[in-house]
């Protein structure tokens, strides 16, 4: 039984192919890439881009502990609907993923319920308390893809240094949520004119910048690799750019809402504009776009953070941080980065496939004969309107409801199986 994708425009980010070509899938592998192929079953991808399934280094699937927000099953369906075939799940669950047994639990739930590939990240410290290093050697051995205390940065410089050293020794990359909480009291949005006007407590950009700076300095001291999560500020990006120019092993990601929205979105007190780090100001949005265009930003991640309707249907300051992102990310890349000519379609694919995969060394994110048949087919021109009730995610907390976007996922294939449409 073989499946052949014909008539599409193939973009292979590693091979550098961007041409009309067919893809033949046999079993869970890509058998051939070339012209004039055929198979038992044929998908006509005329007018569409055929590329590797998307890879997201930053999602919250909430299982175990918060299954009313999302599960590995629903999160993976949201991923498939958004074109993703690999996601790295964050370990801030209850209980947190801080030991080998918990990694095995996630992988078992993934086998039982997920339609795409789940790459669990483990905690860097026990109970995410920022005090004692987790057993990273064993975590790596059972399948942890990375380590992070995402959501909480490790406050102690001593502990952070040792985490970076030990993780690097184990071949694990630390995913750094950079937030110096000592500078915030009860911050709910970006600090600036809009927080002043709205009377909401602010989160200054220095909160992010200071911690990016510290973490990069510690990574240099530890001679370790580090990945900076969700960069939002021009200042934070400048620090990363400088570190890269100095040859440090630093990578970073940003999320679609940071190049599409500013803190003006908070004006209506909509809790779907509340996330951490917060939406910034126009000069930051410009800097993030620039960073994506010039390569300072290595990849796009979603920070997919589902919450229930009720949890978000409250006063702004009481609402939890976070927005969903898996089902809108690709279209926001196409609509806001590719169409205005900021980046090429090829670069867009790279930012969402091979680039994130390479950061953690995941064996996905490219189209290669003999490689896994994780394939996305999308129409880069097709228009659609974001209707949260159509999401496969349990979370409907998107700031993009009602927006018309271009770039529509047609078919998502994971290990040779069509996982979307279902």
């Amino acid at each position, binding site marked *: 039984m073989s499946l052949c994708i014909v008539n599409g425009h193939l973009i292979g980010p590693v091979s550098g192919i961007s041409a009309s070509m067919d893809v033949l899938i046999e079993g869970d592998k890509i058998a051939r890439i070339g012209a004039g192929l055929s198979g038992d079953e044929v998908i006509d991808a005329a007018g569409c881009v055929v590329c590797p399934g998307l890879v997201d280094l930053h999602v919250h699937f909430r299982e175990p502990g918060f299954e009313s927000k999302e599960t590995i099953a629903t999160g993976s369906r949201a991923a498939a609907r958004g074109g993703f075939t690999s996601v790295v799940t964050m370990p801030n669950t209850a209980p947190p993923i801080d030991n080998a047994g918990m990694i095995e639990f996630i992988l078992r739930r993934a086998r039982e319920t997920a339609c795409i590939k789940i790459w669990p990240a483990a905690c860097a410290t026990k109970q995410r308390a920022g005090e004692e290093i987790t057993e990273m050697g064993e975590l790596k051995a059972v399948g942890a893809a990375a380590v992070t205390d995402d959501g909480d940065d490790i406050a102690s410089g001593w502990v952070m240094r040792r985490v970076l050293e030990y993780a690097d020794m184990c071949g694990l990359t630390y995913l750094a949520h950079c937030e110096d909480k000592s500078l915030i009291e009860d911050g709910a949005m970006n600090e600036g004119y809009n927080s*002043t006007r709205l009377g909401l407590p602010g989160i200054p950009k220095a909160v992010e910048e200071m911690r990016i700076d510290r973490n990069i300095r510690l990574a240099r001291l530890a001679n370790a690799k580090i990945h900076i999560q969700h960069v939002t500020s021009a200042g934070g990006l400048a620090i990363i750019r400088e570190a890269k120019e100095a040859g440090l092993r630093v990578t970073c990601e940003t999320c679609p809402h940071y190049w599409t929205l500013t803190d003006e979105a908070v004006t*209506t007190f909509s809790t779907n504009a509340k996330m951490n780090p917060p939406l910034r100001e126009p000069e930051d949005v410009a800097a993030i776009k620039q960073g994506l265009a010039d390569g300072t930003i290595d990849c796009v991640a979603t920070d997919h953070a589902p919450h229930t309707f009720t949890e978000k249907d409250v*006063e702004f*300051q009481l609402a939890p941080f976070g927005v969903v992102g898996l089902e809108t990310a690709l279209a926001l890349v196409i609509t806001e980065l590719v169409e205005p000519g900021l980046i090429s379609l090829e670069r867009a694919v790279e930012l969402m496939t091979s680039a994130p995969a390479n950061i953690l060394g995941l064996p996905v994110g490219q189209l290669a004969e003999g490689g896994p048949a994780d394939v996305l087919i999308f129409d880069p021109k097709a228009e659609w309107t974001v209707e949260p009730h159509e999401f496969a995610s349990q979370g409907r907390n998107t700031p993009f409801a009602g927006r018309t976007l271009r770039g529509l996922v047609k078919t998502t294939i994971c290990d040779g199986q069509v996982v979307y449409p279902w």
Partner: protein
Amino acid sequence: MTETAGTAWTRKDLVGLEDLTREEIELILDTAPQFVAVSARESGIKKVPLLQGRLVVNLFFEPSTRTRLSFELAAKRLSADSMSVSASTSSVVKGETLHDTLDNIEAMHSDIVVIRHGYAGAARILAERHSSHIINAGDGRHEHPTQALLDAFTMREWVRNTRQEPEAGLDGLRVAIIGDITHSRVARSNAWGLTKLGASVVLCGPRTLLPPNIDGMGVDVTSNLAEAIHDADVVYALRIQLERQSRCLFPSIREYIRLFRVDADSLKAAPPHALIMHPGPINRDIELAAEVADGPRSVILRQVTNGVAVRMAIMHVLVNRPKPNRDES
């Protein structure tokens, strides 16, 4: 009377002064004098039937004596049924959301819901979802529009009386607001309201209590009290929350007094005619010296008296939408 009529009132709610036009603000101010007269009736019958049969619910999630009393009185003097609910945030702990609370009140056919809440935006999110007229009686640090309206009314009344110009407005007036600007919804609403009415505003307080980029609201900003009040027609002192000291926002009450207290000594820098105002309750001798609060330039109790009339005007305007100027006697 013969001013060119503004547009009629069309809003369901009063959430903040940032949203209002000068004409809308003036409509409320022009509606209030008749209610000042009602409250001062020699007959002692301080009541009109404009909201007879209506239900006004005061929903207070924060402790308040004066504002709540003022709203209760305003409703009663308009002949509405009014009730006050002191909801603690413990209802949140019990699992009832703010929208749930409003749904329950509306199930009893409320016409106006007055809300005081500790979080910014509470009035706005209610106004957008619910059908009652929502009046914001203070939401976190965001806005306190009825306070700013009664302040503007009091300033205008003083200008008209002292200048003997019954049509005078606030154009050209200089207002200095002194204190903890960061945490003050009164400062924000006054900044919006006064600048829209043509006054100029200077905000003054310790650097630690001035929020970032507040000059974007069209006001001047300084941390020098003498500079703030040297040309002020109105010196408006804000209540300082004593507990801010423990959060490193100022070093001591003693030092605050030294640098920012409005008293006979610091007022030497102000013009002799400058009016003294305060939203209450006063920390006597901390942000405002007793001799100034009680002195001849103080209109602090007049603010309280006018507060009832202005809140009557707001309720009347929201529910009955009177034509501009028609009701002014």
